[in-house]
């Protein structure tokens, strides 16, 4: 199972772009990279998933370099409501027990 490393916490201000980087040096060929967002006392919510290059949806972008040993979640123009914990997961989605949550990155958006 690929291990992930993320910053424990990050601070930002409203309207800024936030980039959260996740390191996964031992990522396997079949592994995908998935990001979740969790608010206090709620379950995590799926944000975005990718395998390589760049993926974009209405919420975020995910940048994955060619070697896939890291990935960056980009949140454009954050607001106070984006304050949450963000988890990076690496694993083969078709293995039922392969998606492991780490400690995550606690993002605090300030006014």
């Amino acid at each position, binding site marked *: 199972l690929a291990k992930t490393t993320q910053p424990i916490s990050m601070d930002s201000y409203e309207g800024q772009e936030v980039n959260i980087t996740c390191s996964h040096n031992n990522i396997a060929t079949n592994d*995908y990279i*998935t990001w*979740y967002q969790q608010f206090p*006392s*709620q*379950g*995590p*919510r*799926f944000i975005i*998933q990718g395998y390589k290059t760049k993926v974009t949806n209405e919420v975020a972008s995910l940048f994955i370099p060619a070697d896939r040993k890291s990935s960056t979640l980009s949140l454009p123009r954050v607001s106070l409501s984006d304050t949450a914990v963000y*988890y990076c997961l690496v694993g083969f*989605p*078709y293995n*039922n*027990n392969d*998606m*492991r*949550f*780490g*400690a*995550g990155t606690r993002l605090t958006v300030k006014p």
Partner: protein
Amino acid sequence: SQTIHQWPATLVQPVGSPLSLECTVEGTSNPNLYWYRQAAGRGLQLLFYSVGIGQISSEVPQNLSASRPQDRQFILSSKKLLLSDSGFYLCAWSIRHRDGYTFGSGTRLTVV
């Protein structure tokens, strides 16, 4: 649309008492189901997962057990709770793994 129900939202139980948490999914068939636990300020720990009725895989040996009596019902149980069982318990489901997991609202369990 698919929905996941988890109850109760909060629970306070004495040490040594039994536990039963229930999770049900609506709007889908044959989902994969998961139980996670999150200790205060920590990440999520996978406890059990199930790919079908009666099929349970355990990730962490402990005094908890899980059962799936129906396709869209997943139950987490314990015969005797320990203080260390306190935490935030989350149920999740998935169909197409590439779309990620959908989590319930969770149960905050405090064992006293």
